[in-house]
């Protein structure tokens, strides 16, 4: 570059050219160009009349100087936004948004009420069982019916603080949206049924235990009375004969057997106490009392073999004494 600019010939030409170069475009052209430039920038808000004038100018210039047309998607996007927002508003307005909430709160209240009822009834039933007055099946059925009716009634009933118009509106909403409420109702009913079953099972178990304890008490009392009868009426020689003569004793024995089966551990302890007593009587040579106790023992524990439990000396003594008495008689 410097080579060219430093060249004398170039400098000469440059000076001459610059001296001769003074032409400018006509003013009319200046005006038309500037006008077109202004229009191009500020043409977006211009009217249709200006576009006709501009088209003439375009023909003059031979180029398209029309303003850029507004994109079609701008108004379309506005319309789309409007439609979407309207649809959302409409949906929100028509949707029963409060109905499920009301149904749920009512169901929760119903559930809470049911829980309280159940707890109270459970307590009362336990007290009844304790007081030894068993509930009948009819009572249980009535309770079940009441409980099954309770959630429906509470769910349908409006809150007392609400205005009547609002209550009617809510009822209508509930009708409009039955699926949500019915699901919750079913759940509540299932919960109630489950609790009822659990209560019934518990009651059954308690009744069984009471029956068992009663049977035990009865058997013990009968046994004791029979044993006392035996002792007072004198000891017979042959057990078979006694059995034939006194069927009550046999019945008492059979009950004893049953009671033995029920409580093996207690019986074993009692048996051991009795054996110890027999042994102490034998050692102290209290033979008369020993005889009675031995008979008693055999009545209580008829199936247990003597050889396994009682001392051999005592058995020998018994054999001798019983032989003597039978010979005397």
């Amino acid at each position, binding site marked *: 570059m410097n080579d060219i600019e430093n060249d004398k010939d170039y400098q000469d*030409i440059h000076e001459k050219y610059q*001296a001769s170069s003074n032409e400018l*475009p006509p003013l009319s052209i200046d005006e038309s160009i*500037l006008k077109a430039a202004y229009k*191009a920038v500020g043409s977006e808000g211009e009217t249709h009349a200006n576009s006709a004038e501009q088209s003439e100018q375009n023909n003059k210039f031979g*180029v398209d100087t029309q303003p850029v047309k507004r994109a079609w998607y701008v108004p379309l996007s506005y319309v789309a936004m409007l439609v979407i927002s309207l649809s959302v508003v409409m949906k929100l307005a028509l949707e029963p948004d409060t109905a499920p909430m009301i149904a749920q709160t009512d169901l929760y209240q119903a559930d809470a009420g049911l829980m309280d009822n159940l707890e109270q009834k459970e307590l009362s039933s336990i007290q009844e069982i304790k007081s030894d007055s068993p509930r009948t099946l009819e009572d249980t059925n009535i309770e079940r019916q009441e409980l099954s009716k309770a959630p429906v009634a509470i769910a349908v009933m409006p809150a007392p603080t609400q205005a009547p118009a609002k209550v009617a509106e809510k009822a209508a909403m509930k009708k409009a949206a039955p699926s949500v409420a019915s699901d919750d109702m079913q759940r509540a009913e299932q919960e109630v049924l489950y609790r009822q079953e659990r209560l019934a099972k518990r009651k059954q178990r308690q009744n069984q235990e009471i029956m068992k304890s009663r049977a035990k008490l009865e058997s013990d009392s009968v046994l004791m009375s029979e044993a006392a009868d035996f002792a007072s009426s004198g000891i017979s020689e042959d057990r078979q004969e006694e059995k034939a003569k006194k069927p009550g004793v046999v019945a008492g024995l059979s009950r004893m057997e049953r009671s033995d089966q029920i409580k093996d551990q207690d019986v074993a302890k009692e048996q051991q106490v009795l054996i110890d007593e027999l042994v102490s009587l034998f050692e102290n040579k209290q033979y008369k009392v020993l005889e009675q106790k031995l008979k008693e023992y055999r009545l209580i524990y008829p199936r247990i073999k003597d050889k396994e439990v009682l001392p051999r000396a005592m058995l020998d003594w018994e054999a001798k004494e019983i032989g003597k008495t039978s010979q005397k008689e």
Partner: protein
Amino acid sequence: MNDNSAVDKLDDQTDEALMVSYQEGNTAAFDVLYARHKGGLYRYVLRQLNNHTELANEIFQDIWMKLVNARLRYQPSAKFTTYLYHLAHNRLVDHWRSEKKHQQHIEYEDILENQSAGPHNKLHQQQVQKEIKQAIALLPEEQRSAILLKEEGLLSLAEIAEITGVNRETVKSRLRYAVKRLQGMLHPLRPVQ
């Protein structure tokens, strides 16, 4: 007062900043830009068209309208003068292609006859101006473009190379040939070095 200060501020700005300002809708920026470059561009077009005024006016308007319409595509990274003369060069090339004939039919003898009129009269300066214009008109298209872009656009060799689509050395040699040829036409009796 305010308008004057605003215009002064715009005068201080570069071409690129003015063009960006015009992109943003500032028409005053376009005024300044147009005032800066209208003369050079007009003379460039006029010389390229062998001083055909009407044609030059039309093409000159076209070039500026192209600039106006393509204002949003302008990137400030490009030098504005290069951008403007690129538009002008392409427009002239289109014109030449459509015309298929250049106004190179001016006879060299006519120029020589005019030269022989003698430098000693009062109209010597005007005569020189006429001569040089005619001499430039007689240059081949590539050399004429190179010398006019250099003189009117005040562009560097690289910028001229970018506009004309050749490398820098080619532009340099074209300029040398153009200068030699102009010297030969303006001073026919002087020995060419």
